[in-house]
């Protein structure tokens, strides 16, 4: 049996708010999930869903109202577990009076990297995130993308077994996102477990072995991306040769478009027979019929409603 790298059992967090702290605000409803060693696990949800709260609970930055969490078999309150994990907070801010090298040496020292290995570890991680040329520059002169790279570097400088990344692609340009994606994939190839939160669904689809979906502090789905999207009611794309739209297609609610000599319609699986009949009745030749792959976005729309802030 594979040991879970992360094991969360009925973890919940309620804050008391207001002047007298009498009003409870639920940030995370009882949450249970497991992440296996070596997995890339995506933690998805719209802004305010409770993703950052979960990560702060796992890091021991806030204390749970109930439940427990274990990382690599140790309770998260056990200081030994912290030497085995790396964490990149959302929109990180670092000591900007330090240079990149000084910052990484500081964090390596705090993580218990022995003095003799420290310089080598720091140099290796600077090379890995593509910052060797600016290692001696103070962080106050860094761009957002460079700071994000420093953030990832500090999360892995001590060679942790489990890496937690909170919105690692947030605010990055397409090239930056691609680099971070490559870096996460390389961490997996080294056998590390990566737990990352995001509201950018395409990143999760591209990277994750499994994902969990959170909304309003509640777990709404967990599994492989393919498993989740297969639960979405499918659609089919029909293409025919012809310059018009068959009359019967509009009546079954198909989305139709004609360009040049071909027409295209997308219909629900249940309406495929009727759509084919309509095309034949109009004496057009059916060229192809292809199932449209459901995406995580479709899953979100179907399970969480359309009023949630997610980014494709």
């Amino acid at each position, binding site marked *: 049996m594979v040991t879970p790298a992360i094991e969360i059992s009925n973890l919940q967090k309620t*804050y008391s708010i207001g002047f007298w702290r009498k009003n409870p605000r639920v940030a995370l409803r009882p949450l249970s999930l497991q992440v296996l060693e070596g997995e890339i696990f995506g933690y998805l949800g719209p802004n305010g869903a409770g993703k950052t709260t979960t990560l*702060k609970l796992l*890091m*021991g*930055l*806030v*204390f749970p109202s109930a439940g427990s969490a274990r990382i690599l078999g140790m309770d998260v309150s056990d*200081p*030994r577990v*912290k*030497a085995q*994990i*790396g*964490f*990149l*907070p959302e*929109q*990180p*801010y*670092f*000591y900007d*009076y*330090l240079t990149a090298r*000084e910052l990484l040496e*500081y*964090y390596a*020292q*705090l*993580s*218990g990297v022995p003095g003799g290995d420290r310089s080598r570890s720091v140099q290796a991680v600077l090379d890995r995130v593509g910052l060797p040329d600016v290692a001696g520059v103070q962080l106050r002169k860094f761009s957002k993308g460079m700071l994000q790279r420093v953030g990832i570097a*500090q999360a892995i400088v*001590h060679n942790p077994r489990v890496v*937690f990344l909170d919105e690692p692609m947030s605010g990055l340009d397409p090239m930056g996102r691609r680099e971070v994606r490559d870096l996460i994939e390389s961490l997996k190839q080294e056998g590390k477990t990566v737990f990352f939160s995001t509201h950018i669904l395409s990143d999760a689809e591209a990277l994750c072995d499994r994902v969990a979906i959170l909304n309003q502090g509640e777990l709404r789905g967990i599994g492989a991306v393919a498993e989740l999207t297969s639960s979405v009611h499918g659609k089919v794309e029909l293409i025919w040769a012809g310059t018009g739209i068959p009359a019967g297609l509009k009546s079954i609610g198909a989305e139709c478009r004609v360009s040049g000599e071909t027409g295209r319609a997308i219909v629900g699986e249940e309406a495929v027979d009727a759509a084919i009949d309509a095309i034949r009745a109009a004496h057009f030749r059916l060229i192809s019929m292809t199932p449209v792959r459901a995406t995580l976005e479709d899953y979100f729309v179907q399970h969480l409603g359309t009023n949630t802030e997610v980014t494709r």
Partner: protein
Amino acid sequence: MNTRIAAIASNTFREAVRDRVLYNLIAFALLIVGAALLVGQVSIGIERIVLVNLGLTAISLFGMVIAIFIGIGLVSKEIEKRTLYTVLSRPVRRWEFILGKFFGLAGTLAVNTFFMAVGFFAALLYLAHTFQWSDTSLLVALYFIMLEFVILTALALFFSSFSSPLLSAVFAFALFVIGSFAEDLRGFAAIAHGPVRAVATLAAFIVPNFSSLNVIASVAHGDAVAPALVFYNTVYAVLYSAAALAGAVLIFDRRNLK
């Protein structure tokens, strides 16, 4: 000191240096040079007394301002800027973070006080042309000033562990002022009656006793400081700072870093 506390202390010191905190030494140097020149002209016969009073008071006030205004942000600024998240997600215990911050700022103040003391003795030498044996008591006064800074740093950290920087500054400064009159408060408690006496006595023991740490006036007149006072003040400063730091740790250990 373990390596994590040492790393945090060293980083706190580096932050103070790079944020140009030690630039206050320039203001101090200008003040002490100006005072040495001026005092020689206007204070016939009491130049030394005036310079010692002025120099030691300036050292005390400069350090007090640094201890309070940096101390109050030591924890709250790290929470506000979220730099604390990447520190506490490592094998760093919260008490280690508090102690590291404390030693870092205390170290900054020690270095700052050392350079101000060098400037002060240089001004004294310029004015008096020679040192006297009684000048050793000036070192004791400087040591007491440093003890003041240690207590103030611990208090500022204590307030910083649960309060906003503005309120922390108000609390710490108020305690500095009240503590400077702690002996008067004790005198008042001794002659008061009923509940007023109880409240005044309690207050007199809670506020830091900075008045017993202030020997500037007596050393300016060349009086020696009793060894027993050095011992009691040292024990007092250590115990008071330890209590304030323990309070800071107790509060910070339970705090959710939202």
